């Protein structure tokens, strides 16, 4: 005999509580299901790949370190991301931050100049005809090809690296912005005309918001390219930065450090992409991908 049936009062209470308890249970079950469906596949695949890596690199004559060896050899770097022993000998956190600082400068300039030029060639057919052929040629120049000429111009490594970021990120921003401005629906322009918005109001209230989804897809491609370029540029210019850290480790034959740095580079790149994507969704209220 259960407690509910022996005591009518607590029985009723239990019955009243039961729906919410059952609901709670259902919710927990649903959460479990969701985790199982979304977390299980990446965990399984990652474990499998690491296992394969471990097996392959543990074989005699393997040239690259196995994951266990990487963790063992880089343990100090993993647990102390912000140590500072002076000079280039600083933790991975500082290395990444140094690279991010260069990206921040170069990318910010690319955003300002790129959006402005994009609006210009989106609005003016004359400017488009004049600038587009030049842009189409220049945008195919690989980022590192700009480095020697910028080193010659700036006579200093840091501004050169920043310039390489700028020149790499700017093309997709210009092109996407101009497409966005060109594709503003006539309907929106008709609304602006009926309301007699002045050019400034038209620009801020109609054109920019309407082109924002395009602009943000350009910004997102741009941030990805910036991060690709900075690692390569830093390998050549030296100093503190994740790119030079990789080059330095290669010269010192510390392959485990390189593996760890690659993981850092990948995670930071993913993070940057997500941040720009998040801002884009907020600004465009969900209309940009």
């Amino acid at each position, binding site marked *: 005999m259960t407690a509910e049936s022996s005591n009518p009062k607590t029985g009723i209470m239990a019955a009243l509580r039961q729906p919410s308890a059952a609901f709670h249970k259902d919710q927990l079950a649903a959460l479990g299901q969701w985790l199982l469906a979304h977390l299980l596949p990446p965990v399984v695949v990652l474990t499998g790949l690491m296992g394969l890596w471990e097996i392959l690199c543990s074989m005699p004559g393997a040239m690259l370190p196995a994951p266990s060896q990487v963790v063992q050899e880089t343990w100090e770097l993993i647990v102390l991301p912000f140590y500072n022993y002076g000079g280039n000998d600083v933790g991975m956190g500082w290395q990444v931050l140094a690279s991010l600082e260069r990206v921040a400068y170069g990318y910010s300039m690319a955003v300002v100049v790129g959006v402005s030029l994009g609006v210009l060639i989106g609005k003016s057919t004359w400017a488009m005809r004049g600038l587009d052929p030049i842009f189409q040629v220049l945008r195919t120049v690989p980022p590192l090809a700009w480095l020697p000429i910028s080193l010659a111009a700036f006579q200093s490594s840091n501004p050169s690296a920043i310039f390489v970021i700028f020149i790499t990120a700017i093309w997709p921003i210009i092109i996407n912005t101009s497409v966005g401005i060109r594709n503003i629906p006539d*309907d929106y322009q008709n609304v602006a005309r009926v309301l*007699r918005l002045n050019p400034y109001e038209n620009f801020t209230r109609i054109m920019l918001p309407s082109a924002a989804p395009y602009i943000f897809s350009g910004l997102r491609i741009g941030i990805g390219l910036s991060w690709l370029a900075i690692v390569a540029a830093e390998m050549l210019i030296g100093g503190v930065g994740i790119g030079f850290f990789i080059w330095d480790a290669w010269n010192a034959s510390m392959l485990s450090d390189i593996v760890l740095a690659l993981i850092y580079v990948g995670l930071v790149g993913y993070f940057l992409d997500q941040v720009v994507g998040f801002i884009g969704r907020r600004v465009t209220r969900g209309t940009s991908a």
Partner: protein
Amino acid sequence: MSDRYLIIDNVNKIFHSKKTATHVLDSINLTVKRGEYISIIGHSGCGKSTLLNAVSGLTTATSGYVILDGKEVNAPGPDRALVFQNHSLLPWLSVYENVALAVNKVFGASKSAQERKDWILHNLDMVGMSHALTRLPAEISGGMKQRVGIARALAMQPKLLLLDEPFGALDALTRAHLQEEVMRIQADLNNTVLMITHDVDEAVLLSDRIVMMTNGPRATIGEVLEINLDRPRNRIELASDPLYNEYRRAVLRFLHEKQQKVAPLTPEASENKQSEADQRVSVG
């Protein structure tokens, strides 16, 4: 003066492309009284939208002119508010903000911030959209979007309200519902309205006069039918009203006997029709 509130005087419109010139509108003459509700009906591609755009100022007539309240129309302006078939709400602005953009621009100097806010809410309330102020256009139904479009147009307190097939994209029940709303609002505000429609029932139900246009090219006004039905009108009672049915018959006779589309449905012809329809969509 109030008998000649809107004057469309000998308006012609010729579109020039590279080699050909298309004479779309030919000598359109129409005079509208203040507070009158006019429907313009005609087959697709007869230039109804072009005529409305000429009155709105979005396109300029090749010759002839449009005079509203003693002033010649030569550019778009908030005194001729438009309700577009595809609503044309700005998708990044909420329902409230869409109306606010218009109200703040039109009454920015003449009304205080509080008055403007009250006026926005009043207009959204009038079309029954007070419950969805913070929703984005993508989050509301087609009928609701059209209500917001109407609220935005009414909130400008236009001298002339231009409706370009306002209910064309809606299902029949929603359309009927919105027609009722428009009649109710019209009874209160007594706006001067120019409405394009394809729908004979809609034209007879809502209008004081129906302007029937001939087929293009060189479309012009074929007949004008005065609708002498008492207001308020009730669609159910009118269904058995002989006068109402006589009006319907007159419009149908014009459209399907006198202005019957005679072009055979060859692939080429239907292609043309398609591109015509596309053009109309892009014009708005």
